[in-house]
């Protein structure tokens, strides 16, 4: 074994704490970076990834089964620009009812023998593909969301029993459900049916290219056979509104993780080398060259760092898999989370950071003249931070505390780096809490209603996704619009009289056009004492009378209007002029929904009446009991009541899980950074510690002194980190909303109360004290005689 190898081995073994800290910090930093990096890689266009993985259809075309033959459709695969095709598949619209007879909105069922093929390789989310008669696979996507419990249930199609054997997801959104071709033919009977063809084009990046492909396909079949076609660009536009929300969030956490890792690793390595300066002097006195010294210390840092990096890559990938399982479900992707590119980049990057930092510090030590290196004492150079020692000695605090408070000022560069590490830890906590609060507040708006009342039918299983349909929209799947109440006043009277009612809002949905915006928009006319509670204002004010509307940011952007402007609307063929009195945070209808007072639209539709009531119950009221009682009370009036489920939104769950996990990692890294610094400080001051103890400092006083030494850094780091965390939260949440065209209300943006901010500011102190506890214990236990002998 060479002398150099011996030095490296003994160095790694001798400084066990330092070795373990380097390994752990690198492991956690790499875990965090792999997790963030893998998720970022996976989030870079999850739709595109899913679309690519499933070989999604650039064009989903419907053909009239009476106007074209299967052979002609199969031949259309040879049309110019078609790279691949699937089909023809027969398709038909069927009436579905769930196991208790609730109707599900009509769905288009496609007859496919299997989920694979050259185009649109449908991914199974639950269960299996339909292989025989009486089996159906439901599509899960943006419109309909089904839980795994649906699989195995007996539903009905057009009155005939059918077993739900699976839930599948098509990135191209090609069907509402699938069955075997024979089964579909049986269901369709003599009714209208169509053929579905799925095409991939050699060029489909723009609407023009897709249009060219479509024209070629159309030309290859008999005229009039093509009855409809959906471009993948339209499907994509619909899908990515959720997807792009994750990107700013992951970028923020990714940057936090990387900067913290660099800081902590740099601090650990530089500290490791600086405490070995004397040893380096001895090695040089024994004949080691500067290059050998440098190599020895870089290797000493790289050994635990490599072990840590390997563990980190493994842990990062293990953590990524379950999280991506959730995002896979959300986006229909099938990423396993392992991105070799990310792994290699993070692994190499972490070791490069370790090597570079160690190289810089070790090279400096290597250049030291032996005599200077040997002369370097363990205590900080006299002169630094004495002003702080003088200042703190005047404080009316126990002397061990005032001694400790001055310690960071003796090593200002190290103090600054550890303040930065604590600040990033505190920023992560602040950011995580703020982001969670903001997202939950967005969700809260959806959750205000406890019960819905309608006249037509009870809520079907396919209509209410997590969180229920909510008052701000018709709910996933676009349930068929309920009939208006004949006597809304009677309904309102029953609701108001019901014990436990806190408030209610009546809603009438319709279609409207607005000057400057192409196409029909959804209008929501509201009535009732509770309506303002269901919307969060961004600017302006709530409706105070007829002739007023409130709209979202995308509406204002599309119409080129501002709050206070008038706008021409057309409802039911009647032209109306309304004033935009408020900008509201409302994501329904892609933010183009027009919310107004019932009286405004009655000018165009005198018979307009609510078709749905959303009811909130008083705090402490049993919602199920209330619903049953209301149901009974409403029955004579011809209305039904349903309680609304309040499961958290999947996106919120994913973000909350990620936020918690990444924050925890960053906090642990920050704590380890503090611990390492305090260990270094304690080592450097071990002789002084011995003197203090020889003079009568008790173990408790020693602990107090060591912990006090991180109080200033903890407080400064906590305060700076909290401020940064708040800034980050506002920036990220604003960016997340802005990426889909929305501005957020202050109630969502202002996630922190003053008490919370104070507590978060103290988070830095908690991280610092937690990191200092272990070395403080070691310091307290240090034997005086040993400490005094230590040079």
């Amino acid at each position, binding site marked *: 074994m060479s002398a150099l190898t011996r030095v490296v081995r003994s160095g790694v073994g001798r400084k066990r704490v330092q070795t373990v800290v380097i390994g752990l910090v690198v492991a956690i930093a790499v875990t965090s970076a792999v997790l963030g990096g893998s998720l970022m890689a996976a989030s870079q266009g999850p739709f595109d990834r899913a679309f690519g993985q499933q070989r999604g259809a650039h064009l989903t075309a419907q053909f009239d089964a009476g106007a074209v033959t299967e052979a002609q459709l199969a031949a259309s695969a040879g049309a110019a620009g078609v790279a691949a095709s699937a089909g023809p598949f027969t398709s038909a619209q069927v009436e579905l009812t769930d196991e208790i007879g609730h109707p599900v909105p009509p769905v288009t069922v496609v007859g496919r023998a299997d989920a694979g093929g050259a185009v649109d390789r449908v991914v199974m989310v639950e269960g299996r593909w339909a292989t025989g008669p009486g089996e159906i696979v439901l599509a899960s996507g943006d419109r309909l969301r089904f839980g795994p419990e649906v699989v195995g249930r007996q539903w009905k199609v057009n009155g005939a029993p059918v077993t739900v054997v699976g839930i599948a997801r098509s990135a191209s959104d090609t069907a509402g459900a699938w069955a075997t071709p024979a089964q579909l033919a049986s269901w369709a009977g003599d009714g209208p049916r169509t053929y579905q063809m799925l095409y991939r084009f050699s060029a489909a990046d723009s609407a023009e290219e897709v249009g060219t492909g479509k024209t070629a396909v159309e030309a290859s079949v008999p005229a009039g056979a093509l009855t409809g076609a959906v471009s993948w660009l339209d499907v994509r536009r619909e899908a990515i509104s959720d997807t792009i929300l994750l990107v700013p969030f992951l970028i923020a956490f990714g940057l936090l993780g990387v900067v913290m890792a660099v800081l902590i690793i740099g601090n650990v390595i530089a500290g490791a080398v600086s405490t070995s300066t004397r040893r380096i002097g001895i090695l040089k006195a024994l004949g080691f060259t500067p290059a050998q010294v440098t190599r020895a210390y870089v290797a000493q840092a790289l050994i635990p760092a490599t072990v840590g990096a390997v563990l980190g890559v493994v842990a990062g990938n293990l953590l990524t898999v379950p999280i991506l399982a959730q995002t896979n479900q959300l986006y229909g992707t099938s990423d396993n989370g392992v991105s070799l590119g990310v792994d290699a980049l993070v692994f190499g990057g972490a070791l490069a950071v370790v090597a570079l930092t160690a190289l810089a510090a070790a090279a400096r030590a290597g250049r030291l003249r032996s005599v200077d290196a040997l002369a370097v004492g363990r205590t900080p150079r006299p002169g630094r931070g*004495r002003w702080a020692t003088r200042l703190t000695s005047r404080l009316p605090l126990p002397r061990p505390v005032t001694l400790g408070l001055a310690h960071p000022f003796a090593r200002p560069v190290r103090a600054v780096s550890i303040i930065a590490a604590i600040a990033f830890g505190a920023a992560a906590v602040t950011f995580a809490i703020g982001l969670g609060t903001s997202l939950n507040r967005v969700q809260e708006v959806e959750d205000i209603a406890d019960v819905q009342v309608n006249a037509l039918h009870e809520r079907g299983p396919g209509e209410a996704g997590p969180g229920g349909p909510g008052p701000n929209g018709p709910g996933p799947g676009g349930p068929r619009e309920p009939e208006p109440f004949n006597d809304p006043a009677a309904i309102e009277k029953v609701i108001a009289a019901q014990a436990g009612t806190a408030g209610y809002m009546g809603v009438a949905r319709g279609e409207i056009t607005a000057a400057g915006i192409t196409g029909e928009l959804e209008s929501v006319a509201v009535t009732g004492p509770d309506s303002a509670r269901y919307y969060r204002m961004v600017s302006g004010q709530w409706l105070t009378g007829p002739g007023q509307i409130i709209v979202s940011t995308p509406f204002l952007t599309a119409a080129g209007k501002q709050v206070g402007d008038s706008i021409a609307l057309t409802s039911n063929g009647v032209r109306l002029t309304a004033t935009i009195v408020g900008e509201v945070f409302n994501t329904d209808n892609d933010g183009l929904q027009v919310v107004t007072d019932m009286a405004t639209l009655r000018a165009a539709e005198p018979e307009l009446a609510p078709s749905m009531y959303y009811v909130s119950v008083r705090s402490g009221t049993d919602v199920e009991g209330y619903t049953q009682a209301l149901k009974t009370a409403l029955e004579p009036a011809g209305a039904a009541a349903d309680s609304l489920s309040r499961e958290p939104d999947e996106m919120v769950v994913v973000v909350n899980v990620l936020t918690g996990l990444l924050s925890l990692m960053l906090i642990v890294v920050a704590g380890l950074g503090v611990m390492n610094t305090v260990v270094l400080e304690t080592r450097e001051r071990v002789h002084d510690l011995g003197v203090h103890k020889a003079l*009568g*400092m008790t*173990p*408790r006083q020693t602990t107090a002194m060591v912990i006090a030494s991180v109080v200033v850094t903890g407080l400064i780091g906590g305060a700076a980190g909290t401020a940064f965390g708040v800034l980050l939260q506002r920036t990220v949440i604003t960016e997340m909303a802005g990426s889909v065209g929305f501005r957020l209300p202050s109630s969502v943006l202002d996630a922190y109360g003053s008490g919370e901010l104070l507590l978060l500011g103290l988070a830095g102190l908690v991280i610092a004290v937690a990191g200092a506890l272990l070395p403080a214990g070691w310091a*307290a236990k240090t034997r005086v*005689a040993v400490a005094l002998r230590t040079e």
Partner: protein
Amino acid sequence: MTAPLIELHEVTRRYDEGPPALNEVSLSIAPGEAVAILGPSGSGKSTMLNLVAGLDRPSAGTVTVDGVRVDRLGEAASARYRRARIGLVFQFFNLLDDLTVADNVMLPAQLAGMGRGAAERRAAELLGRLGVDRHAAAYPGRLSGGERQRVAVARALMNKPALLLADEPTGALDTASGEDVMRLLTELHADGQTVVLVTHDLELAERCATRTVQLRDGRVATGTAMELLR
């Protein structure tokens, strides 16, 4: 008959597998005595001082100082014992470089809970008595060796200890400074301070001590000091 201030009874201190640093040593020192512990390197002098100061614990035997069974004390009690009863003077002063002379001297009193004002007054008195009061606001690094040792002695006397333990107090000093410190220790003894010196400096022992105890290979030895030191 006056009770002894220090009583070591069959004290043994063993480190690892080697021969004991102290081997069944028994020793008694009365209040007001000035005793020099003499012996060559490795004889167990510093081990004995550490045991008396409560900086270390014996492997066997008992150490009683001022009625306190020092060998039974835990870490915290041992610290309280030191700051109440023991003044320590080290060969290399062990002053804290980032504290002023006055702050160094005040430290033991402040660790014992004395208020800053009272500590300042006591420190000023001691620094004046030892002739280093002009350096009160200076940092130890600017003082000569003799001055530093005077400051160390002032710090050792801060809590009015029953016992002053000095480990080679002139070992790091030039002749003139050594003389200075010897004179100081003699004066302190003359004022009634019990002093235990650990040294291999015969002159220091002769001038400052009223009794010498010789150690060799961890045992109290007989013979002349010169013979033993050889």
